[in-house]
């Protein structure tokens, strides 16, 4: 039975390949040969043949060359003076695929979290994982879209459905319109990926880091599925995912940050992704070059911004202004580094703008040869379709362009675009040029001047000083002319365009008929004049440089480490020496020595007299410099903050100006078990990976209380848990699973003979918990009230793991003895309370009590604003509870270093430790103190001496760009109102960055609005 079905399928499949059996009418089969003679043929970017011939047969190229024998039945077309190019190939298209629309009111009831995939069938558990999607199966010809693309020179595209994290396979299509089955050239050309979950109505993942984690898990799942016989169930997604691995993999990025992230992920699984660029590669071109991969570049350069009103223009950020200037130079920057690349029209909202944008890129330095390669041979080579499209070689598809001149010249026109041997006329030049000066016999005139485009001519009739501009329209070779002369009525004329002559008849205002002629005496005078004027373009002014990072106060060059001798400062050592006036010598990024009268050697000497020198502040609880804060599964231990570091966050610089040098970037508090921390140094200008402290200890965020139970949500949430009772069970359940998982692996690893055994499935969520059980990963737990704190300590005791730090821990003072007994650290706010029910018993004396109990105690920020003055927050422990000043200072330096297990490197001014230092104008605990220099690893990242200069440079650079923009507007370039960003709210631990900082409490509401938006 099954065989018969298969046969049937084959039969019907074949039927489509052949001509329709019951043709309506007589057969009209043509010989199918076309010979194009005497053209300049660009076989590929490196091979240009002058006066050459191109022979095609039906849909294929038969031969390219000169003076060869050709079949007599060929239709011969003379292309003297014309150029032939391979038509362009866009390998990042969604042409012909269904429009992506969010189902209205999708998701479970729209309002609540949705835990299951809504895709029916034996597919992946997550709706954003769709390797089984085959574009070849859903594609249909879209005549309107095909026409748009043909007009800008494209003949074929590689198209995929741009939805989901794993998007399935693409298809090579031509832009012909005959039949779907003819347009489809090759299925399964490439396999596609992104960090965007798209239209999936499943809530997980909401965050960028969740998307990374899900994809990572999918690689493990598919690998395990492939290797494991006796699967309990079939999964078509897993099968497709494994099968897709043999194809070129293309990954969508929206910025250089994404590109670096993609490369990092690829290395984990041995995949070299082709990267669809976000168009800002120039910002970190050396790092992009090091990825050593192919880029697909977009041309969606930003529009000029309207900056006329000085008050409103204050809202325009330097980074946006500079991107406007430098984005068109991105392709040139990529080419200059020798990076292999293609160009896509994908991000252009108006395809017709393609050549304008391409010209902008060429003006900004992209060579015409590189441009042609990026549109033809490069994309076809990288996706292994060079035997089909991309050049004009024998056997390839007859996809080519005929142009009137070099295609990248400013006024070049595509005349015809041939797709699979079928002609599409793009610009009809059979409309002859008629511009020029004529002698005419039209009654009352002797001179006719024609200007304008051939299709839309403008006329002027003259006799001595009398001039009339008639209304005129042209339909191929006919002109219709009407005019009114003086006080007379309207005269009407018909003209027939001939060779250098127009003949016609007319009826004057009185109804009298007449004949007329116009004879050309001077061709195209006006047009020639305009051309020479256009040629006198000024050389482009020098552009501004790149900044690291690419925002206000970024560095023109990365700051370098230097040897420094800070003399005679009051040094807060945080060691038994206490606070004393002495010298500190910094060498090779480390504190070399501390003592009086140190010899400077080659070190730069900084006079610290009257000033205070301390360690840099360490913020134990921070959410700056991140693209993601929260994932929203109750157990989200698989997500990693290290995957989503934003090196361009202005808060890095702001906090350097507050003396902060190190921050633990924590997952938020939406989940009982949150993600894995990143511990970074605030090295302003370095790329994300370089911010992470090498070999930093592994940490993870846990959370308790109102945030995890969504206590402040306006409706009852549908995510477990919603009570503190449930919170306990989430932990017990997760660790019970982790213990079983750990045993499973131990049994497998212990087995001497592994044949016949299958390795257990890697589970990234449980891996992190096993690391905790093994003491390799340390817990920082968001906590408020004593009941829950006590609970987690008991759960940890009973299941055999340790809690490293309770963060926030506002009722820690009630349990200090229990914490002390377990050597748990406390990291708290100085004086926050009353903002919700669970903090109504918070007291500012908390830190002092914990500290006096012998608990390692820190003051943290959890707030980008407060982090800028953590020194003042530390000082409050003197005010509330009476810590000594040295004890107070340690709450933001040595103590957090200890709880981050970095006190062997950080936290005190001691020979051998990292030179992370701050020179203060005053006692660092005083409100009157400000940092004068903030130093990390011996590099000065914030300097009061150059602060004003930096601000002046910022204003000057903005002014330079604004002057250019104003000049653009003066020239008539359309400008757009800059996007006015709302002032960024303070980001706290309950925010979801991807949804513009919506708080987890409002997630349900947000999802409802999102689903109702239909977007």
């Amino acid at each position, binding site marked *: 039975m099954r065989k018969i079905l298969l046969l049937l399928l084959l039969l019907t499949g074949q039927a489509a390949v052949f001509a329709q059996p019951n043709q309506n009418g007589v057969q009209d089969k043509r010989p199918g040969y076309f010979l194009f003679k005497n053209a300049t043929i660009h076989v590929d970017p490196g091979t240009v043949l002058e006066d050459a011939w191109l022979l095609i047969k039906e849909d294929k190229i038969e031969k390219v060359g000169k003076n060869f024998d050709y079949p007599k039945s060929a239709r011969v077309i003379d292309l003297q003076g014309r150029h032939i190019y391979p038509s362009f190939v866009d390998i990042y298209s969604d042409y012909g695929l269904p429009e992506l629309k969010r189902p209205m009111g999708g998701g479970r009831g729209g309002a609540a979290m949705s835990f299951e995939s809504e895709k029916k069938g034996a597919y992946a558990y997550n709706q954003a994982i769709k390797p089984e999607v085959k574009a070849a199966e859903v594609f249909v010809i879209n005549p309107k879209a095909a026409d748009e693309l043909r007009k800008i020179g494209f003949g074929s595209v590689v198209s995929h459905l741009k939805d989901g994290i794993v998007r399935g396979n693409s298809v090579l299509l031509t832009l012909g319109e005959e039949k779907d089955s003819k347009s489809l050239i090759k299925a399964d050309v490439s396999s596609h990926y992104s960090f965007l979950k798209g239209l999936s109505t499943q809530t997980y993942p909401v965050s960028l880091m969740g998307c990374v984690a899900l994809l990572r898990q999918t690689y493990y799942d598919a690998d395990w599925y492939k290797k494991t016989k006796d699967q309990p169930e079939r999964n078509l997604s897993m099968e497709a995912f494994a099968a897709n691995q043999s194809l070129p993999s293309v990954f969508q990025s929206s910025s250089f940050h994404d590109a670096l992230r993609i490369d990092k992920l690829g290395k984990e699984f041995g995949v070299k992704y082709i990267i669809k660029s976000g168009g800002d590669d120039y910002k970190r071109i050396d790092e992009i070059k090091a990825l050593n991969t192919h880029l697909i570049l977009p041309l969606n350069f930003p529009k000029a911004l309207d900056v006329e009103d000085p*008050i*409103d223009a*204050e*809202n325009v*950020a*330097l980074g946006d202004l500079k991107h406007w200037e430098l984005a068109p130079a991105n392709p040139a920057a990529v080419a200059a580094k020798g990076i292999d690349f293609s160009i896509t029209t994908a991000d252009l909202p108006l395809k017709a703008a393609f050549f304008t944008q391409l010209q902008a890129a060429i003006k900004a330095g992209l060579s015409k040869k590189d441009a042609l390669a990026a549109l033809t041979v490069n994309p076809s080579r990288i996706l292994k379709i060079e035997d089909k499209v991309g050049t004009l070689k024998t056997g390839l598809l007859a996809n080519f362009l005929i142009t009137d001149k070099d295609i990248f010249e400013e006024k070049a026109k595509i005349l015809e675009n041939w797709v699979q041997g079928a002609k599409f006329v793009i610009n009809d030049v059979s409309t002859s040029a008629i511009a020029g000066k004529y002698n005419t016999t039209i009654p009352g005139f002797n001179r006719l001047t024609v200007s304008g485009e051939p299709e839309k001519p403008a006329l002027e009739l003259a006799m001595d000083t009398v001039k009339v501009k008639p209304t005129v329209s042209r339909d191929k070779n006919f002109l219709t002319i009407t005019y009114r002369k003086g006080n007379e009525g309207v005269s009407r004329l018909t003209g027939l365009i001939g060779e250098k002559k127009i003949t016609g008849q007319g009826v004057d205002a009185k109804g009298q008929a007449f004949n007329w002629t116009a004879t050309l005496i001077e061709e195209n005078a006006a047009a020639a004049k305009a051309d020479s004027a256009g040629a006198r373009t000024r050389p482009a002014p020098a552009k501004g440089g790149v900044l690291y990072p690419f925002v*206000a106060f970024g560095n023109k060059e990365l700051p370098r480490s230097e040897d420094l001798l800070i003399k005679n400062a009051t040094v807060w050592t945080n060691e038994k020496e206490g606070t004393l006036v002495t010298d500190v010598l910094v060498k090779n990024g480390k504190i070399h020595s501390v003592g009086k009268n140190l010899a400077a050697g080659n070190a730069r000497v900084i006079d610290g007299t009257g000033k205070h020198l301390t360690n840099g502040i360490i913020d134990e609880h921070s959410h700056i410099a991140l693209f993601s804060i929260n994932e929203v599964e109750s157990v989200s231990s698989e997500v990693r903050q290290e995957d989503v570091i934003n090196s361009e966050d*202005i808060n890095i*610089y*702001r906090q350097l100006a507050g003396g902060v040098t190190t921050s633990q970037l924590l997952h938020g508090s939406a989940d009982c078990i949150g993600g894995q921390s990143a511990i970074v140094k605030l090295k302003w200008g370095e790329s994300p990976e370089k911010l992470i402290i090498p070999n930093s200890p592994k940490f993870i965020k846990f959370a308790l209380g*109102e945030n995890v139970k969504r206590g402040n949500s306006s409706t009852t949430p549908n995510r477990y848990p919603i009570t503190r009772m449930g919170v306990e069970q989430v932990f017990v359940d997760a660790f019970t699973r982790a213990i079983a998982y750990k045993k499973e692996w131990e049994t497998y690893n212990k087995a001497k003979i592994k044949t016949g055994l299958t390795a257990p499935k890697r589970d990234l969520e449980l891996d992190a918990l096993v690391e905790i059980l093994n003491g390799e990963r340390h817990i920082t737990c968001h906590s408020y009230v004593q009941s829950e704190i006590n609970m987690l300590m008991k759960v940890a005791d009973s299941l055999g793991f340790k809690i490293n730090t309770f963060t926030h821990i506002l009722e820690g*003072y009630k349990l*200090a*003895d229990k914490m002390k007994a377990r050597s748990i650290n406390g990291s708290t706010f100085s*004086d*926050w309370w*009353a*903002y*919700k029910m669970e903090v*109504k018993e918070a*007291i*500012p*004396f908390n830190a002092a*009590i914990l500290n*006096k*109990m012998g608990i390692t105690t820190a003051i943290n920020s959890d707030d*980008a*604003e*407060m982090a800028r*003055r953590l020194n*003042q927050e530390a*000082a*409050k422990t003197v*005010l*509330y*509870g*009476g810590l000594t*000043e040295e004890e107070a200072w340690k709450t933001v330096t040595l103590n957090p270093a200890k709880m981050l297990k970095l006190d062997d490197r950080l936290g005190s001014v001691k020979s051998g430790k990292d030179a992370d230092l701050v020179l203060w*104008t005053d*006692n660092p*605990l*005083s*409100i*009157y103190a*400000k940092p004068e220099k903030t130093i990390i690893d011996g590099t000065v990242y914030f300097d009061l001496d150059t602060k004003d200069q930096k601000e002046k440079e*910022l204003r000057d650079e*903005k002014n330079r760009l604004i002057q250019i923009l104003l000049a653009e507007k003066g020239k008539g370039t359309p400008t757009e109102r800059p*996007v*006015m*960003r*709302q*002032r*960024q709210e*303070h980001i706290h631990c309950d925010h979801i960055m*991807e*949804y*513009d900082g919506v708080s987890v409490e409002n997630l349900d509401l947000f999802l409802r*609005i*999102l689903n109702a938006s239909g*977007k």
Partner: protein
Amino acid sequence: MKKLIISLFCLLSGTAFAQNPGAGKASAEPVLFYNAHIFTGNGTEHAAGSMLIEKGLIKEVSASDLSAKYPNAKKVNVEGRHIYPGIISPASTLGLAEIESSRPTLDYNELGDYNPNVRALVAYNTDSEVIPTVRGNGVLITQATPSGGVISGRSSIFYLDGWNWEDAVLKPDDGLWLNWPRRMSPSFNFQTMTRELQKNEHYQKTVDELRELFAQSVAQKAGGDPYDNLKLTALNGILSGDQRLFIQAGTDKEVIEAINFCKEVGVKHPVVVGAVTSELAIQTLKENNVPIIVSPTHRLPDRVDSDVWEAYKLPAYLAGKGLTVGLHYNDSYWRTRNLPFVAGNTVAHGLTKAQALALITSSNAKILGIDQWVGTLEAGKHATFIISEGDILDMRTAKVTRAFIRGAEVNLDDKQKRLANKYFEKYGLSK
């Protein structure tokens, strides 16, 4: 039996723990504080001065010891201590909110866009447990302020001590709060998943509604119409100049439009609450003699490109331009105990310590229209002041030891101190 124990327990612990301390009583006899470092709030400082208070008022402040002049006064030696005027906290919801996330405890945002008739006066809860924690840092006066809508309602100014609102109020219904409409309003862009500011289509409509409201109020009054429209009547004080109009606006252009509106409709005492940075807005304030209560220094700069210390510098910048500048801390009512430090933060960024102190004492008093009673330590004003161990603007030294309101000593105990003491005792720790 069990019930009895519980009620007994409540009785005992109730008096000891669960309530705020009772309000203070003014001494019947004159009291002289001498050997004090007195900061008067108007820029004058006496390193070893003295101050006599009597019947709730300041009788005399002197650079020298007044002991000989007032032999009958009770003498208090405050050697080594500082005396400051009680600090004034404008634009706060303290007393109108208890737990920020708990709606049943919130009483500052009434339903509807136009609420000139509602009064914070009657919702102010003297028994709020947050109040003692704020006055413990020297903040003795608060402007209980409604928020929300276009016209939020009327504020009242309270002393942070008293048995009930009637008793604690310093100036009832001192002003009306207007949120000037936004020319641009945020809308969510689902393509970029960010909020962007789009032109507010209702801007002109809202401005017209406001204009109409003020015009109708004038008309109603002129007509002597017996029909009493609560909303229109509520504007009388603003138009007569008895009350102030506090304007919160989003951008400098809005501030300018709001001030022009005030001129047009005849508002006598407009006050801008927020931040302005442009020369045009500053000049508009100056020319129209409009004071500004500046947003807290503890906030991030408005824009990525702004000077990282913009907020710290703004009070000095505006004062330098010749504006009358006050300061508030409205981030959260429970954080207003940091108001002295918010002022202190300006000192490393352009103001002198005396100017920084003036922001939250004499300037705030003048701007709120209560300077005849409070804001400085001068003869004839209320004996409302604090005594501290050191510089009140710097948390290193800011410990407040005593506080007086209209001559009555305030009990500085609070719930947080009691909780701390309980656990200091439990663990046997020294304070």
